[in-house]
């Protein structure tokens, strides 16, 4: 039963991803992407990583995707934008990316042939994660915090002028 759930979630993730990336309307695509993320969260949970599953939902699907939503709303592409997207998705544009990704996938699968048999099934509790995170990985935490800070500053700097400008126009 649980195995079935795994395969179902995997299928959902796959389908949702494909759909997300082939939509012409950004908002629709975003919704599919969120579905895909949620399905992956299910996979995490099933593999015994409840903490990761939770973060996937809260931060990925919750926070990051919402950023996308904001931006899509701000840009307000409209119908002609959707039509143009649809046009860009036409047949010939698929050839080279399709072949390349297919080849890469083939290579990846070949490379993964000899992967170890299966996951252990034992869950890793958040406590262990926290201990490891602030133990051996403390430097990574610091770096990540720096990264976030710089992301913050960069986003503020890049976004600010856009907003100011629009306000002045109004």
């Amino acid at each position, binding site marked *: 039963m649980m*195995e079935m759930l*795994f395969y179902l979630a*995997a299928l959902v993730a796959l389908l949702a*991803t494909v759909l*997300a*990336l082939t939509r012409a309307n950004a908002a629709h*695509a975003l919704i599919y992407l969120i579905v*895909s*993320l949620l399905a992956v969260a299910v*996979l995490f*949970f*099933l*593999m*015994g*990583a409840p903490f*990761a599953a939770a973060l*996937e939902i809260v931060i*990925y699907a919750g926070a*990051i995707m919402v*950023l*996308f939503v*904001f*931006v*899509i709303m701000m*840009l307000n*592409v409209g119908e002609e934008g959707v039509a143009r*997207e649809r046009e*860009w*998705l036409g047949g010939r*544009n698929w050839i080279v*990316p*399709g072949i*390349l*990704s*297919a080849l*890469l*996938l083939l290579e*990846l*699968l070949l490379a*993964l*042939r000899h*992967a170890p048999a*299966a*996951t252990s*099934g*034992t*869950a*890793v509790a958040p406590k*262990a*994660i926290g*201990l*490891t*995170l602030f133990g051996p990985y403390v430097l990574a935490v610091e770096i*990540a915090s720096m990264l976030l800070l710089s*992301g913050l500053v*960069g*986003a*503020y700097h*890049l*976004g600010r002028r856009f907003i100011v400008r629009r306000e002045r126009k109004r």
Partner: protein
Amino acid sequence: MNGLQIPMEQVLALAGILFSCGLLGLMLRRNIIFMLMSLEVMLNAAALAFVAAGAKWSQADGQIIFLLILTVAAAEVAVGLGLVLQIQRRFKTLDMDQARRLRG
């Protein structure tokens, strides 16, 4: 609670497929927003592989890397979307085939 015992090659194959889908999207789409979404898919696929590996060895490291990927994704999206706004302002389009200045 305990998790499932899932064949690794299947999880990793899923991650690989998702990653390839992301790549496909990255190369296929001309709209910068979709390209960013594709990046998210790829990051997510990588995260899936890490988590699966962590589960295989019952170690916390996989999830920790996921956490780091998450921060990277967050920062990237923040800056990336800021850039999207700037591109829209400067080029009046989100089409990355047009938003370029190099003549080549």
